[in-house]
């Protein structure tokens, strides 16, 4: 059984005079307990996919999909309340802006406590409360907050961004979800804690069979432990496949550019004052998308056929959208070791 199976996901922003396609026909699937990386520049629609998945977008956005299956259940055919129940029981999310996702007028303990599931604790009222408190303390210790007493009584504006992020992570893993969507969970954390958090997520993934969608633009943090990688550009999933295939033989020039633009400090032949590789140009805004292949104007090996939108192709379990898929191996070989 697949954990998640999405076909042809479209996310559109409805404005007064037009609709803007923010994410276009994305296909995405995950096995149970799989770790899947979602990579792309900012503005490429990674977070939108995640938010659409948990139903966090407001009614200015229109989300349509041909197929939206979660653990064998068709989310598309459920009533609103049933879908909300399934999602809240099985999926949790670590948000990108931790402080904005915490209620400014209630203290941390009550917010952490309400993310615990009700059914897990039995016993009479007082004992139940005691158990929930203990569980909350354990959760905070897990994410690396030692002064639980102090943090419990604080309000979000009293805490640093990093601690808020840790609290968000504690909330997300509180109900031991089947799927955790981590939207750049380690951006506001110090390097040491960010490693610890990734370790924690790894262990939850292995011990509790929790699937993880890891959204990031930091390639190093994802290649070492993701089973599969999906690359997004301009609202399209341009390449997806198993991690080792993507690292060893990316088919899409953008994927290759992403890997190449990460400076390689390990190799001996890095020259002094060597120019770092970067793809020319910037990501276009959604109102001014190029005709045909979205990477077209920036692509180093664009040709005439690229004026037409490439269809999705599949070669050896690797999906990509490109008329002229790359054949050679990438220059950086250190990705194999990672």
């Amino acid at each position: 059984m697949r954990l998640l199976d999405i076909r042809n996901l479209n996310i559109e922003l409805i404005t007064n005079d037009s609709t803007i396609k923010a994410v276009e026909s994305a296909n995405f699937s995950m096995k149970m307990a799989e770790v899947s990386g979602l990579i792309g520049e900012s503005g490429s629609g990674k977070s939108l996919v995640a938010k659409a998945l948990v139903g966090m977008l407001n009614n200015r956005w229109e989300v349509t999909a041909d197929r939206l299956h979660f653990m064998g259940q068709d989310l598309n055919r459920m009533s609103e309340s049933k879908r909300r129940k399934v999602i809240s029981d099985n999926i949790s999310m670590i948000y990108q802006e931790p402080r904005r996702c915490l209620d400014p007028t209630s203290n941390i303990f009550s917010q952490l406590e309400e993310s615990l599931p009700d059914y897990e604790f039995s016993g009479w009222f007082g004992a139940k409360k005691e158990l929930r408190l203990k569980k909350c303390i354990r959760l905070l210790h897990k994410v690396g907050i030692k002064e639980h007493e102090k943090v419990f009584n604080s309000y979000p504006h009293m805490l640093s961004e990093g601690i808020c992020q840790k609290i968000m992570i504690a909330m997300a893993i509180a109900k031991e979800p089947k799927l955790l969507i981590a939207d750049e969970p380690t951006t506001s954390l110090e390097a040491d804690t960010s490693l610890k958090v990734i370790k924690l997520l790894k262990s939850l993934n292995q011990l509790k069979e929790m699937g993880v969608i890891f959204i990031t633009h930091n390639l190093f943090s994802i290649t070492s432990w993701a089973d599969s990688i999906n690359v997004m550009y301009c609202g399209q999933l341009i390449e997806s496949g198993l991690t080792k295939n993507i690292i060893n033989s990316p088919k899409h020039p953008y994927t290759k550019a992403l890997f190449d633009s990460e400076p390689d400090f390990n190799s001996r032949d890095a020259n002094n004052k060597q120019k770092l590789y970067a793809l020319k140009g910037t990501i276009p805004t959604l109102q001014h998308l190029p005709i045909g292949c979205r990477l077209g104007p920036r692509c180093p090996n664009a040709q005439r056929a690229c004026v037409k939108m490439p269809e999705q192709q599949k070669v050896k379990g690797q999906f990509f959208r490109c008329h002229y898929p790359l054949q050679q191996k990438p220059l950086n070989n250190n990705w194999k070791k990672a």
Partner: protein
Amino acid sequence: MLNYFYRKLSLLFFITFGVTVFVFSLNYLFPTDVLSNMSGITNINEIDYDVIAQKYNLNDSVFTQYFGFVGRLLDGDWGVSFINGTSIFNQVFRVLPATIELAIYALLYSFIIAIPLGILASSDKHPWLDKSILALSIIGFSMPIFWLALLLILIFSIGLGWFPTSGRLSLIYNIPSSSGFLFLDILRSNIDYKSEALADAFKHLVLPTFVLAAYPTTVLIRTTRQSMKDVMNTSYVKAAKIKGLTSGQLLRRHGLRNGLLPVIQMLGIHFGTVITLAIVTEVIFAWPGIGSWLVDAIHQRDYPAIQGGLLVISGMVFVATILFDLLYMIFDPLARRHGHGKI
């Protein structure tokens, strides 16, 4: 918290200072004789003049006169009325409870009506409900209340005969006045016709309360609607929704607390307007409160009474504003944070 409270108190002190200076200067600005304005005694003959002038420090500097004035205010010696020669202090505090009663009931009523309607209107699920509530509130907002009051009297008092046209209590009930708050007095008195008196007092209260509540209700509906809309769209409410909270829990734990903060602020801001409207309402319904009393005083050129009324009404508005501010601070942890450079 204490720091904030202290700052608010000092603000109250300075405002009170300003108002007393203004009220004191009215003694000189009103057309009649200064000493008459201060004491309330008209046509003072020459023999008494020196004695009274001595008492009111009229021969000393203005500053001494001012401090004497403040001292008399604190002692409760607010002079006597031009018209009937009775103590203004006693008169003011005899009519004040009626106004406070009316204002509190009207605010309470508007709170109870407006908050649920505002929340209903903020929901995206029923756009027609939103539109009809908004239309109603705009009608209420733009309707002048003196006209609304007359219309209601015409329909419900004269036409249908359900409610009395004016007054606070029917004359056949004799309730000994102890606190001045009618319901409290009725409950505390030992009379045989308690329930009848209560029912009669309630009947008298219905129309004035409704008229006075019309304005704050419409303001509150619109504020609640907008702020609930904003709050329900924030990331933290959505995040809480994904945690698996039901709609009721969501509203109770996150929606109301954040959504009602601007409402509390709005109530504080509009309290002054409500008191002004209360004066109009009291005149129309012959409600024996400070509003109709003050209007009578103005009609009769009773200058000492005008001074007293001014002092009490402005004091009431300040105290209420500061109370609402404190209430706001108790509910909003963010307001407590800005310790400096904010009043």
